[in-house]
């Protein structure tokens, strides 16, 4: 057979370069019998349609993956979302996870932190340290990363409306460790649009929120070139009840909005676009999920190239984190959840994820215990090292079903994105409630199917048993809130009041202009101004978003 020119070009330019820079994990990948496993299985004949729709991994349109060798080169980052109670407690859990072989940190903040309230705010009652760690000031952040080398560990932070404040604290902690911002690796979620429709931790109205996001893109472009400045998230949209197609459509529509806003502010596309990351849900419908990831990757590449005219290949790559679907976990027969998570994690890996969080079996009951977290991590390790699916790139490509489904999800997502654009864009569609209604209707239909028995959830509406004993659950120390409030009050006594006040006044003045606010926030956190104080300044200037 004559060698295909597209294939030759890929081998010579893309693959060779990648292999030279990042050798594969093994010299040879073989099965138990010693047969070699091909890096990339291809159709007998590589025609134009194949090249247009699927192409080669690490090449446009990236359907088969963003790296030429995928997991043969490097496994995905095993990144378990964790954090609870105090900074000291969470620091212990992170160090445990690192010891157990987790390869990146993922910080869960409590709800007051995520909504920009200090622990002593009346709205914080009962919520301090519950779903994540409480951070009031740089002092807490210093404790959170004590003895964790920020030069080598990559950290993902689930923080949205106050993302700038927490990132500034992270930069300040690194500085104290002697690590320059240029060396920092990680991701901040920084995706406020989905908070209005799905997750609920909004503070400011959409326009000033978009300004803060763009300010972060710009500051990070100049100072933290290896940090992902946003994680555009479909995860929570899916958790709120959307379908797979809606998850892709609403996420990419949000992505389009962030790109357009940054362009409008004068940022250069091929500088900021390469630091945009994504975050998807992996649910139990294994084949649909695999197709979803592939469709999202192809569609984002097309949007970046065709709509925005991206020149840099990295701007077109949809790199994503995945978390298994929390909404599928059951409180009944909780060991069944390990099996669900295995299917979901497998879907993420077959779909080419760059990092993965696997949920723990007991999360329908409470925050996970250490034992459950370890099993969740082991699930990833078993897929990585025992299942064999990491030995070849995009193993499901070419399946008639998978390719049809990939095409269908892309087509339907395009239709939905067009609908949103015709309705005036994402912000208008949020204010009108269009997106929320779509999600709500899908959630209602799904739950009705469970109630009617049309959809079986094993252990819930089928194969039930009487369970004698309840598994042990993790309890957050109820004293954590009191202690956090006491520490905060102590901090307020010991810092330099004038310098705190001045830094907040500077921020206030800057917020009333078009200035990039990052440097002002960084200066304030270094004076130990609290998260609540900083957000209050911005609330005064920007106003607060109210759900209607």
């Amino acid at each position, binding site marked *: 057979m004559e060698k295909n020119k597209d294939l030759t070009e890929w081998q010579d330019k893309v693959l060779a370069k990648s292999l030279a820079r990042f050798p594969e994990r093994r010299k040879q990948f073989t099965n138990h019998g010693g047969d070699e496993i091909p890096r990339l299985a291809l159709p007998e004949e590589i025609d134009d349609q194949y090249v247009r729709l699927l192409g080669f991994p690490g090449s446009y349109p990236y359907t088969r993956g963003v790296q030429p060798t995928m997991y043969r080169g490097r496994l995905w980052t095993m990144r378990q979302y964790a954090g609870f109670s105090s900074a000291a407690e969470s620091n212990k859990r992170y160090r445990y996870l690192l010891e157990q072989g987790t390869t990146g940190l993922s910080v869960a903040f409590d709800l007051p932190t995520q909504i920009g309230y200090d622990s002593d705010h009346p709205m914080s009652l009962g919520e301090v340290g519950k779903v994540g760690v409480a951070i009031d000031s740089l002092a807490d952040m210093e404790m959170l990363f004590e003895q964790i080398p920020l030069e080598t560990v990559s950290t993902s932070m689930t923080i949205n409306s106050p993302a700038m404040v927490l990132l500034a604290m992270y930069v300040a902690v690194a500085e104290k460790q002697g690590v320059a911002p240029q060396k920092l690796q990680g991701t901040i979620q920084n995706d406020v649009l989905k908070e209005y429709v799905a997750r609920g931790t909004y503070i400011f109205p959409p326009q000033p929120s978009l300004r803060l996001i763009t300010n972060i893109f710009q500051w990070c472009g100049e100072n933290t070139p290896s940090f992902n400045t946003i994680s555009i998230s479909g995860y929570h949209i899916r*958790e709120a009840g959307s379908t797979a197609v809606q998850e892709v459509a609403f996420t990419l529509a949000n992505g389009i909005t962030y790109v357009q806003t940054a362009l409008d502010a004068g940022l250069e596309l091929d500088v900021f676009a390469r630091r945009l990351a994504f975050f998807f849900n992996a649910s139990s419908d294994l084949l649909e999920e695999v197709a979803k990831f592939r469709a999202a990757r192809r569609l984002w590449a097309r949007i970046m190239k065709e709509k925005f005219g991206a020149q840099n290949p990295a701007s077109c790559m949809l790199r994503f984190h995945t978390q298994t679907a929390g909404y599928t976990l059951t409180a009944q027969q909780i060991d069944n959840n390990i099996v669900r998570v295995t299917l979901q994690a497998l879907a993420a890996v077959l779909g080419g994820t760059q990092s993965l969080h696997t949920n723990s079996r007991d999360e329908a009951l409470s925050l996970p215990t250490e034992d459950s977290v370890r099993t969740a991590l082991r699930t990833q390790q078993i897929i990585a090292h025992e299942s064999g699916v990491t030995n070849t790139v995009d193993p499901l490509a070419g399946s008639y079903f998978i390719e049809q489904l990939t095409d269908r999800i892309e087509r339907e997502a395009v239709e939905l994105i067009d609908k949103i654009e015709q309705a005036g864009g994402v912000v208008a569609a949020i204010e009108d409630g269009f997106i929320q209604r779509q999600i709500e209707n899908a959630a209602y239909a799904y739950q009705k199917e469970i109630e009617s028995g049309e959809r079986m959830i094993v252990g819930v509406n089928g194969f039930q048993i009487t369970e004698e004993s309840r598994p042990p659950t993790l309890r957050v120390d109820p004293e954590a809130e009191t202690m956090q409030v006491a520490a905060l009050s102590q901090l307020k006594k010991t810092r330099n009041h004038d310098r705190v006040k001045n830094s907040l006044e500077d921020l206030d003045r800057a917020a009333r202009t078009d200035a990039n606010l990052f440097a002002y926030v960084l200066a304030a956190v270094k004076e130990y101004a609290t998260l609540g104080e900083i957000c209050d300044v911005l609330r005064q200037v920007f106003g607060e978003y109210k759900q209607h």
Partner: protein
Amino acid sequence: MHKHNSPFRVLIGKPGLDGHDRGAKFIARALRDDGFEVIYTGIRRTPEEIAAAAIQEDVSAIGLSSLSGAHLRLFPAVVEALRAAGVTDIAVLGGGVIPEEDIRQLKEAGIDEVFTPGTPLEVILEAFRSACRQQRKTHQP
């Protein structure tokens, strides 16, 4: 459907900062489909706001939802706010990610029923119907 002329009125509330409203919205809609009049507060309400809304809207029962682990503080606070306003005949039901061992404590604090994940919808609807019937019995002359 209800046997009375006027439909039962209930309020679904999300106290605290938890934004997981999939369950609360589902219950609100399912109650509506069952013939209830339902007021849904939206997310991020204080216990005091929820109690005040319930009194103002003259509901027979309140359904509270929290998935953030703050239920032991927030659910009883709603009951206290009702009592502080002199109201004792509005039933308070709750649901969410609630460990088994917390249920007794919640009931002692005046929460009438607590539902954990996986509870069949019909069980929840019946609890609301029964709470409303009870309230109407004691409320009517």
